[in-house]
């Protein structure tokens, strides 16, 4: 992972001092709430239903063990002993006090962590593949470029007061695990004539008006990454709508102008700057790359005796579910499910964070990732350690073998915490998880992404769930709209609404009927839920969902 140097550290120190001063000026009345709000948001501080919420940035989802311990410390010292991992690979603390936030920020800064640009109308944390640097599938480690973008976008003087928030995602693998097509800018590394560069997509996004991003450039040579992004951002900053908050995202600008015209303007702007100071030379790239610690992988055989000798059926089930191949022999990528049956999706206690940090140090070269599915990942574990690791994780309650299955639910915090939410989402997630808790049944159902958002802002990414639930409120009662067939991967597609919203009390039954319909109609167990929906269309599902009882 990237290790801060003296310049990165100086910047972070100065940011803490600046924020402490801003909080003091707010508390003394020198700053009005209206003036203070954008400043606190740019440091990740929201005011939610019950308290302030701090969103800490986890750059491209990568954490070191000491950083995870620093998060545990903040949970203990300033919050209520837990944190919530988000769909953008960050973490949120729900119970923080404004007057204590500068101290919390200072403690985080010691570990190279911060809340900078995790909210506000600025360039947010760049997200990427949680398997980056570990998967055999990738062309190049996308985190190097995500770090280049982090540095360029941090406290950018021109782009800190944009029309609206701006999210960038990047993938280095053909199989997209970063949902690049539903970001303001999506970047995909690919090869053309032996040279590696980016496909640039613009104007994707979920929320109130979901769009799939449009490719505005098939191939951008790598050295032009920043100048091209600056051209996009400048075109957006000057031309994005500011008259209506719901129309201020770049996706609306691209849609209203047309992707071709948008692309033409970006290219024209870029022609002026492409060979300027932002051009990435080999030396700069080598310098950034050199500050990423790459584990010194042991030379180990695949499928060692320590692994194959372990025949506990529970272990075998977990291994089949939570482990994927690593680029190095004898190693594996391990997903730690933060979705135990009946628990709030994505939450971890301070004790769990500390313990996982210890395990990462002992068995995983000290590295941890956060996935946008709200799970943790140990990207580099030795296969021979898997049985021991499994027992330790199981004791922590984070070894449920449900990764990618129906109970691996992605959910926003909903009305239990969030000031924007219309309905709760966690209780629905919990009840679905309980209904499908039988592990055999989950395995039988197979791959199924179920996403829940408690309002139209779509933080639970319901549009790209195979089954998506969107909470709507009618006369103070909770209802859920159901979409089917959404996908967030390289073939991103938005789900289709199957019909009228169903009452909160019925939603679990309806989800079960949808799943049962799939099981009844699939051609074979090899046909996944999403494949069956694509083959059959939504009609048979709709019929069973609304069948009179």
């Amino acid at each position: 992972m990237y290790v801060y140097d003296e310049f990165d550290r100086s910047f972070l120190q100065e940011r803490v001092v600046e924020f402490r001063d801003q909080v003091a000026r707010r508390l003394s009345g020198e700053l009005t709430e209206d003036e203070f709000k954008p400043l606190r948001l740019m440091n990740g501080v929201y005011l939610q239903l019950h308290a302030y919420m701090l969103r800490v940035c986890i750059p491209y989802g990568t954490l070191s063990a000491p950083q995870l311990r620093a998060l545990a410390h903040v949970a203990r010292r300033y919050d209520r002993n837990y944190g919530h991992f988000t769909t953008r690979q960050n973490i949120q603390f729900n119970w923080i006090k404004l007057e204590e936030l500068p101290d919390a920020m200072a403690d985080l800064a010691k570990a190279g962590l911060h809340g900078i640009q995790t909210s506000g109308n600025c360039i947010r944390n760049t997200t990427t593949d949680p398997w980056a640097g570990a998967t055999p599938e990738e062309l190049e480690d996308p985190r190097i470029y995500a770090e280049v973008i982090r540095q360029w976008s941090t406290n950018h003087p021109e782009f800190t007061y944009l029309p609206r928030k701006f999210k960038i995602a990047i993938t280095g693998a053909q199989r997209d695990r970063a949902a690049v097509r539903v970001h303001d800018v999506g970047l995909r590394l690919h090869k053309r004539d032996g040279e590696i560069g980016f496909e640039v997509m613009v104007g994707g996004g979920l929320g109130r008006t979901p769009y799939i991003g449009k490719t505005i450039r098939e191939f951008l040579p790598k050295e032009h990454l920043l100048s091209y992004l600056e051209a996009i951002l400048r075109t957006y900053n000057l031309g994005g709508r500011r008259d209506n908050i719901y129309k201020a995202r770049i996706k609306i600008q691209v849609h209203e102008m047309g992707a071709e015209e948008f692309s033409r303007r970006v290219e024209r702007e870029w022609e002026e700057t492409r060979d300027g100071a932002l051009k990435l030379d080999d030396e700069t790239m080598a310098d950034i790359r050199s500050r990423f610690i790459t584990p010194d992988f042991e030379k180990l055989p695949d499928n060692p005796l320590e692994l194959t000798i372990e025949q506990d059926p529970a272990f075998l089930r977990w291994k089949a579910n939570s482990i994927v191949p690593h680029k190095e022999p004898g190693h594996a990528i391990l997903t730690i499910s933060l979705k135990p049956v009946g628990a709030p999706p994505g939450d971890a206690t301070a004790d769990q964070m500390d313990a996982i940090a210890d395990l990462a140090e002992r068995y995983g070269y000290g590295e941890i990732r956060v996935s946008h599915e709200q799970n943790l990942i140990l990207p580099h574990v030795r296969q021979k350690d898997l049985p021991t690791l499994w027992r330790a994780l199981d004791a922590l309650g984070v070894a449920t073998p449900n990764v990618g299955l129906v109970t691996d639910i992605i959910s926003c915090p909903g009305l239990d915490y969030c000031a924007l939410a219309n309905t709760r989402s966690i209780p629905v997630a919990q009840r679905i998880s309980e209904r499908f808790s039988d592990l055999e049944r989950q395995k039988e159902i197979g791959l199924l992404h179920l996403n829940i958002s408690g309002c139209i802002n779509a933080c639970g990414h319901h549009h790209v769930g195979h089954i998506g639930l969107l909470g709507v409120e009618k006369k103070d009662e909770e209802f859920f709209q159901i979409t089917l067939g959404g996908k967030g991967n390289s073939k991103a597609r938005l789900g289709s609404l199957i019909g009228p919203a169903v009452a909160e009390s019925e939603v679990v039954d309806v989800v079960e009927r949808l799943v049962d319909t799939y099981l009844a109609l699939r051609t074979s167990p090899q046909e996944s839920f999403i494949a069956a929906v694509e083959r059959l269309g939504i009609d048979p599902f709709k019929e069973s969902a609304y069948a009179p009882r």
Partner: protein
Amino acid sequence: MTSPLQRKLKITGPTVVTANRLRDGIVVWLKADGVWSEDLPEAAVGNTADEVLDLLDIAQADESIAVGAYPARVNIGEDGAVVPGTLRERIRCSGPTVAYGEAVAAS
């Protein structure tokens, strides 16, 4: 100072004014004496739009103690007890409806 927009406030029953306290974000309600309270039962209840607007004026005139003030429906029980009128306000009053943190791990 009251904007003409605020003067259009419609209320559908007994209403209180609520906000979050600046220094720690906790939920507070406005009392009749203009002081913020952590207890809903102490809140001043307005029964007409004008009464609620007067409370809002007091709340919004000074954001040094509490921020984001808005009117919230309440219900008055037969015993005179003031309880939140919506799910959102029930959650703000009593906390999340789900267990969290170590309470989850323990269950």
